[in-house]
Every structure is written in structure tokens, then in C-alpha cells.
């Protein structure tokens, strides 16, 4: 195609016009693609700028140490206190617990689908996992609030069923499809030759799966896990509905918690714009953004590390 075009241009005709047409044919799509791509970046930069601009003024009201280590979140009492430690601890706790539940389960599930499950059942398993991924988080939150919480409270004789365990369990269900499908992709991409080589060396099926296949796919699995963790940190609806919402540092799995995301969601609607409380909520938004960016960079580093080796 390209060569044919060149010939036409060099053999005469209204040269300039042809060249111009070709030029426009390149410039227009290039311009459109560039501007679309740039608008995405511009939007992102604008959001970061907006978050920092609205979040930074809280530092005039209170110190960074007070925010990071303060144990009391009473933003509207008099005098207010803006300690975010219980909220940060709440976010960390539900994320950690949900990851502990979902990552091993997700990886084993992925291994089952890629290496154990017969070919015909494989498609069925993948599709049902994806359907689980479509479940809106508000539905899960509602199940947590209306079904799991009363049962958990009654069966375990807890003070309340709206707690860290309930929220983490639901978050685990929410991130399981992400972890399992992405892990499965990288497990399936491990060349058959690796498996054959392992069997040829006398490896059992178990040894092949856990020592060879898992090891080969470890980078992909690590990325899948981090993406799952990221989703867990940012998830709002489930924790808003099922985590209980008490701003305390959790000491047991049955303690209610109030993660950063649910605090923002619950309080932003009725906070006067421009008040210290409003700025404090935006500051939390910045914190969440930085956590997500840090996790993103981690994913990229794992990816580039894979390229070198």
C-alpha cells in the first residue's frame, strides 16, 4: 500500500494536492488521537490539582502530626479534632483482612481453572467468575447489612454484625474476580513446554503446579493481587453499609470500623463548602489518591522488572 502511494506521488499529477491529502490523512487522525489522550491526562492533572487545592487548607487548622496520630475524629464538635488515625487504621484493617481472605483463594481458584479443570468446564468457571465481578457493590453492601449482619450478630453473639469482619468478607468477594481472572490469565500464559519439562524430570502434578507454573507466573499474580488490593482500598459502598462506621482503631475483627472512603461518602453531602471539615475530607481524598498511585507504581515496577529478566 505504502509503496503504491509513493509511486503515485513521484510519477506526476497535481503533486501538491496529493501530498496535501496524504498529509491531512495523517494529521487529522493523529491530532484527534493526541487530543483525546491529552484530555485524559489533563483531566487527571486537574483532579489532582483540585484535590490538593481543597485538601491543603486543613493544615492551617491543625498540624500534620495531629492529623496522622490524633485518635479522635470529631470534626464538628467545639473545639473540633481532626485525628485521622482511626480512619486510616480502619482502611488498612479492612484492606488487609480482605486481601488475606481473597488473595490465596483467588490464586488457588486461578490455578484450578488453568491447570486442573477440564477444558469444557473451564469456560463455565471463567464466565461465572466474571459474572461475580459484575455484581454491583451496593448489592453486596445491602446483603451485608440486611442478611449477614443480623445472622453474624446472633450466631457469634457479637455486639453488632456491622463490623470489620463483615465488611472484609464482602470486600473479599468483590476483589476475588479481579485477582482470580488476572492470575488465571498469567497462569494460562505459562508455556506448555515448562509443564512438559517438569513432568519429564519426574515432577508430580502437584510439584509442577506449585513449583513450576506458579513460579513462572509469579509476577502476573503479584500484579493481580495488587490490583485487587487497590480496589479494596478505594471501595466505598460496601464499607459504608457494612463496616459499622465507628471511628476507633480496631483491636478485634468484631470491632466496627470507619474507613476513609466511607467517611468521605457519609459526611461530604452535608458539610458546608469551605469549612475546615470540608478541607479535611478532601485531605482524605488526597491520602487515598496517593495510596492508589503508590500501588500503581508498584504494579508498573513489577511489570518492567519482568521485561529485564
Amino acid at each position, binding site marked *: 500500500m505504502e509503496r503504491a502511494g509513493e509511486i503515485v506521488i513521484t510519477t506526476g499529477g497535481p503533486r501538491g494536492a496529493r501530498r496535501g491529502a496524504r498529509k491531512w490523512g495523517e494529521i487529522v487522525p493523529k491530532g484527534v488521537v493526541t487530543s483525546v489522550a491529552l484530555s485524559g491526562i489533563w*483531566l*487527571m492533572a*486537574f*483532579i489532582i490539582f483540585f484535590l490538593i487545592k481543597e485538601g491543603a487548607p486543613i493544615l492551617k487548622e491543625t498540624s500534620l502530626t495531629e492529623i496522622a496520630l490524633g485518635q*479522635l*475524629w*470529631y*470534626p*464538628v*464538635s467545639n473545639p473540633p479534632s481532626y485525628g485521622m488515625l*482511626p480512619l486510616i487504621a480502619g482502611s488498612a484493617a479492612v484492606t488487609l483482612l480482605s486481601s488475606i481472605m481473597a488473595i490465596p483463594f483467588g490464586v488457588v481458584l486461578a490455578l484450578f481453572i488453568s491447570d486442573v479443570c477440564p477444558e469444557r468446564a473451564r469456560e463455565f468457571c471463567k464466565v461465572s467468575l466474571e459474572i461475580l465481578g459484575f455484581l454491583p457493590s451496593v448489592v453486596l453492601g445491602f446483603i451485608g*447489612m*440486611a442478611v449477614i*449482619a*443480623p445472622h453474624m*450478630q*446472633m450466631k457469634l453473639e457479637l*455486639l*453488632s*454484625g*456491622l463490623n470489620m469482619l463483615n465488611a472484609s468478607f464482602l470486600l473479599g468477594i468483590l476483589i476475588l474476580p479481579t485477582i482470580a481472572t488476572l492470575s488465571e490469565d498469567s497462569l494460562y500464559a505459562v508455556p506448555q513446554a515448562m509443564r512438559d519439562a517438569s513432568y519429564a524430570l519426574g515432577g508430580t502434578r502437584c510439584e509442577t503446579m506449585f513449583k513450576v507454573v506458579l513460579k513462572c507466573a509469579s509476577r502476573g499474580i503479584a500484579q493481580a493481587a495488587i490490583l485487587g488490593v487497590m480496589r479494596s482500598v*478505594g471501595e466505598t459502598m460496601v464499607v*459504608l*453499609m457494612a463496616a*459499622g*462506621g*465507628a*471511628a*476507633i482503631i480496631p483491636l478485634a475483627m468484631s470491632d*466496627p470500623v*470507619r474507613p476513609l472512603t*466511607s467517611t468521605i*461518602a*457519609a*459526611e461530604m*453531602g*452535608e*458539610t*458546608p463548602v469551605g469549612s475546615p*471539615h470540608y478541607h479535611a475530607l478532601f485531605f482524605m481524598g488526597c491520602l487515598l489518591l496517593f495510596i492508589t498511585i503508590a500501588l500503581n507504581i508498584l504494579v508498573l515496577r513489577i511489570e518492567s522488572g519482568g521485561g529485564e529478566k
Partner: protein
Amino acid sequence: MRKSFAVLFFAAAVAVAGLGSAAGAASEIAINGSTTVLPFAQSTAEAFMKLRPDVRISVSGGGSGNGAKSLIDGMVQIASMSRAMKDSEINDAKKKGIDPVRHTVAVDCIVPIVHPSNPVNNLTVSQIRDIYAGSITNWKDVGGPDKRIAVVGRDTSSGTYEVWEEKVMKGTPVTPRALIVASSGALVQTVAGNPLSIGYDSLGYVDPKLVKALGIDGVKGTPDTARDGTIATSRLLYMYTNGAPAGDVKAYLDFLTSDDGQRYVAREGFVTLK
């Protein structure tokens, strides 16, 4: 997640710009004040504008104090307030030649609620305060079974919390261990699902099939005890005008206090005037 936030933000900006430009030459009424009054002020204003397309009403909520201030400064025709004007505010108004006239528009009543299986029927205000402050933690201390109390509350920025703070807590901080839920509906749901819990909600949201309302100091929360103020947790909601209302302002207030207008008040969980 981030992108959808941006889209929402953009849509909101467009909507605000649209509203701004739509305001025409017709008669305009501005209402500012209590966020508690805001929901039914908004819905009655919309209903009123449907009846009278020549009138435009803009409603905003910056708190009762802000409402009083904007009436005194002549910025609005109506100030909505969840408390009566203070003497200092009335004096300020008089100095600027404003004569604030009070109109009662609705009654706000918050009642404590428990699971229907709870044998406790009545608590005193100080018992409730101690439960919410975290100094009473067992139902047996208030005449119930020997079980811990799960304290359920609302976000500190909600109007429901505001009444609770004003009438019950009176400055005592709520224990950080309290479960906090984000809406009136979620509160009823939470209390209905937990036999150990205590919560509070607007009288209009309390469904006797799901939860049991407690009496306070021996008074049951009913529309009547709320209206005459015998229950400790009720308050009247007001709108203030400069002098006796006239013209469209009067027409709006008449609509709000009529049976039609009060239907919107009831829909937001408040107690009607009659």
C-alpha cells in the same frame, strides 16, 4: 472511579450554570437557612412553582445562623430556622430596620428506638445521654437484660444528629465506639436487625413493625406530644420574614402551611402542624 467522579462534577457544573441562566424576570423569592428545613422547603418550593410558574424560589441551606444573618442583611425574603431567633439577632435586625416575624412551619421530633424484642420501654434523658456518651454500656443498668448495648447514631453533619445533640447530649461527646450509619433508612434497618441496639430517628421514619420507639421521661413520642412540646426531643421549625408577609411570599407560606404543603413536610419524616 476517578473518571466517573469527574463526569459527575462536570454534570453538576452544567446543571448549576443552567439553573443560573434560567432565572428570568419573574418574581423571585430567596430562602436560606436551616439544613433541617431544606428538604421540605425544596419540595414545597418546587410544588409551588408548578402552581405559580411566574414565581421563582431559590432555596439554600447554610445553617440557621446563616439564614438569620442573610435576612438581617436583606439578602433573602425568608430565613428558615430550626430554632427561634436569639435576642442578639433580633436586636441586630431592629438596628438595620428589619422586623423579623416568626412563622411555625413544621415540627421536628426525634425518638429513641430499640429492637422490638427489647423489654425496655422508657428511658430518662440522662440515661440516654449516658448510653450515648459510653458510660452506661449494659442494658441491665437501665432495667433490661444483662447484655451489652450497641449504640447506633447518625453522622455529625445530619439534621437528626443536630436535634439529638441539642436536646439530649447537650455538649457531651458521643462515644467513638458508636456505630454510625449514613441515613435514616439505614438506621431503622440496623436497629431492626440487632436485638442489642439503640438508635434514634425522626418520628416519621419509625416503623412500629420493625422497631420499638421508647418513651422519654415517661412521655411517648406521638405527633401530639411533639406538637405541644411535652416530649423532650421535639422542636418547632420556623420561617422568618421581614414584617408581615405579603404578595408571593405570603402565598408561598400559605401554601406551605396548608394541607397540601404539609403533605411534603410529612413525606420528609417531620410532624405536620395539625
